[in-house]
């Protein structure tokens, strides 16, 4: 693929998996239905046909089994890429992720590495039944020993997944499922990724206020910034990309310039990523702040039935409402 390509997020993820399977014999793809079906979202489409049943592995049904067996493979020297079908299905594997994947490198005093990538489609807005629309990223970002990232566009989907698979530390890779079919161009032939895996990126420069978003909310934040121009407001939008570690410097630099910050995510606001970012910004840029940091996110309720999810999820209007409040402060 020498030319810049136009791909969906899903296609870019597939291309990244294919690249790593081709170039690293230790990479294995495993999960439920990742074989012939190509995964419930078709992210692994065609991979088993090309790389075989012993490298693209249809596992029995059991999330703990998928992650626990990946741990054993990692001890044996493999580099497993696990698929969890939906955000709300990850909890049966929580012990394996938090107590084993995250801790074994430390427990072994560095003797054993856990180069495991755990792919999780997350977030709502697709009209699904319960457990298919959640945003559990904060649980994992809270856990020492895990790195947590999320992509918002095809280029990041491709490069960040490649980087995650190459990471010698375990990476929980959140995929914005409602953006799977968003298209964008990317250059898969570049020698290296455009950005380090754990860097945030200013995706729209602006001067009046900063919006930090990630994953599915980046597109929504950009729409809000575009709408705000009609009111003569120039918003900066940062795609956080890495949730652990957090690229605090990029956020702080922006806030020093704009003086105002709104953090947007689908996850419930209490003890979410927004809380951590607000804490860091007030620690590092207290005298630059012209207004309190505001959070726009899911309410502190269970994710609602799909017929009401559009009310629950942050949208352009709720972001603009927060922008109004921070600018009016």
């Amino acid at each position: 693929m020498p030319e810049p390509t136009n791909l969906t997020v899903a296609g870019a993820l597939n291309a990244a998996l294919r690249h790593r399977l081709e170039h690293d014999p230790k990479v294995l793809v495993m999960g439920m239905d990742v074989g012939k079906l190509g995964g419930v979202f078709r992210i692994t489409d065609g991979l088993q046909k090309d790389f075989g049943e012993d490298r693209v592995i249809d596992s029995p049904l059991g999330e703990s089994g998928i992650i626990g067996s990946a741990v054993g493979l990692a001890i044996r020297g493999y580099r497993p890429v696990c698929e969890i079908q939906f955000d709300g299905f990850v909890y049966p594997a929580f012990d394996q992720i938090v107590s084993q994947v995250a801790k074994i490198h430390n427990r072994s005093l560095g003797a054993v590495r856990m180069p495991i990538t755990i792919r999780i489609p997350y977030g709502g807005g697709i009209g699904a039944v319960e457990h298919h629309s959640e945003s559990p990223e904060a649980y994992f970002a809270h856990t020492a020993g895990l790195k947590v990232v999320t992509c918002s566009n095809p280029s990041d989907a491709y490069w960040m997944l490649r980087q995650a698979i190459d990471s010698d530390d375990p990476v929980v890779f959140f995929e914005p499922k409602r953006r799977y079919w968003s298209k964008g161009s990317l250059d898969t032939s570049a020698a290296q990724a455009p950005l380090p895996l754990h860097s945030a990126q200013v995706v729209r420069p602006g001067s009046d206020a900063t919006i930090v978003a990630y994953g599915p909310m980046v597109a929504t934040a950009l729409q809000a910034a575009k709408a705000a121009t009609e009111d003569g407001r120039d918003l900066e939008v940062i795609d956080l990309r890495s949730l652990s570690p957090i690229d605090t410097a990029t956020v702080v630099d922006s806030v020093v310039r704009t003086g105002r910050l709104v953090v947007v995510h689908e996850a419930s606001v209490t003890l979410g990523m927004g809380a951590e970012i607000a804490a860091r910004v007030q620690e590092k840029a207290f005298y630059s702040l012209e207004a309190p940091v505001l959070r726009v996110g899911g309410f502190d309720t269970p994710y609602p039935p799909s017929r009401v999810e559009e009310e629950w999820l942050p949208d352009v209007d709720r972001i603009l409402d927060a922008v109004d409040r921070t600018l009016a402060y």
Partner: protein
Amino acid sequence: MTLHGHVPPEPDLVQLLTPEGTRVQHPDFPLEITDEEIKSLYRDLALVRRFDGEATALQRQGELGLWASCLGQEAAQVGAGRALRTQDMAFPTYREHGVAWCRDVDPVTLLGMFRGVSLGGWNPNENNFNLYTIVLGAQALHAVGYAMGVTRDGAVGTGEPDRDTAVLAFFGDGASSQGDVNEAFIWAAAGNLPVVFYCQNNQWAISEPVERQSRVPLFHRAAGFGFPGIRIDGNDVLACLAVSRVALDEARSGQGPTLIEAYTYRMGAHTTSDDPTRYRLSEELETWKHRDPIERVRAYLVRQAGVAQDFFDGIDAEAEELAVRIRAACRALPDPGPLSVFDNVFVDLPDELAEQREGYREYLSAFEGAGH
């Protein structure tokens, strides 16, 4: 006769050495073993017990924060441990001190986590003995994942004795109720993986008797998952060795998983924090003392093999030397420095964690030279 063609005889417990020290033959599991080899097993058992007892003493004297004794389970562990080949991999719980011994892991290394100077602290791939796992059941899945890797590496069924590899997963009667153990059974069966599940049924999960975990003998569970299960006298080191060898051989040759239930008894407390007098009768312990795993080997060696007292005196002396060494080495284990908590959290240390470490370093340096 192989395990995979095995029909459990009555009684459902393979025994090759009676509690009285009499060698008996089992039609399905003949064991050719010399008296010299049995003496070597006796040495293993005696040294493991001495080490284990010393660790309990070290806890009582405040040198360890906790100890999980393997008292009474030495035969179950040494028998399985001595059936392993160098290339095989063992996945222990936190009580497999006898298996660690057989894998040449220095007992002092095991003490680190119980003293609180590390959270494990050895390289699983150095002796092919995985780190102790405290959240029980998790290690059974690690074992099947490792076995998936073994299979993919082509290290099963080649017929080359130094290449074919088996994985031995340890757990107990309590952890047999964990979802992870049952998922491990499913993974192993579905993938026909070279793994032997070795359940030490020591009758007690802290205070809960095995009846709390199962209404059928634990080894019967294997049938439902589609692989052989067998119960052995877990206090008979010869039975443990013989049956483990067969199961591991069958795993290495590609015949798939086996469940071995080593029927034994936790003669001590669950850990040094436990008080078994609150939940079990001393008569039960007395009954099991008559089935002691070491005494029967000694009785065999004295009565049937004619081994002289010199041999036992020698082992006792070696055990004392071991205990002295362990005691000194344990007390000499250095406390980790405060900044070590940042080590090995990641392979690639994130900037923000490096900053946190630097902040703590600066904070600590403010006290230097300040006296008290």
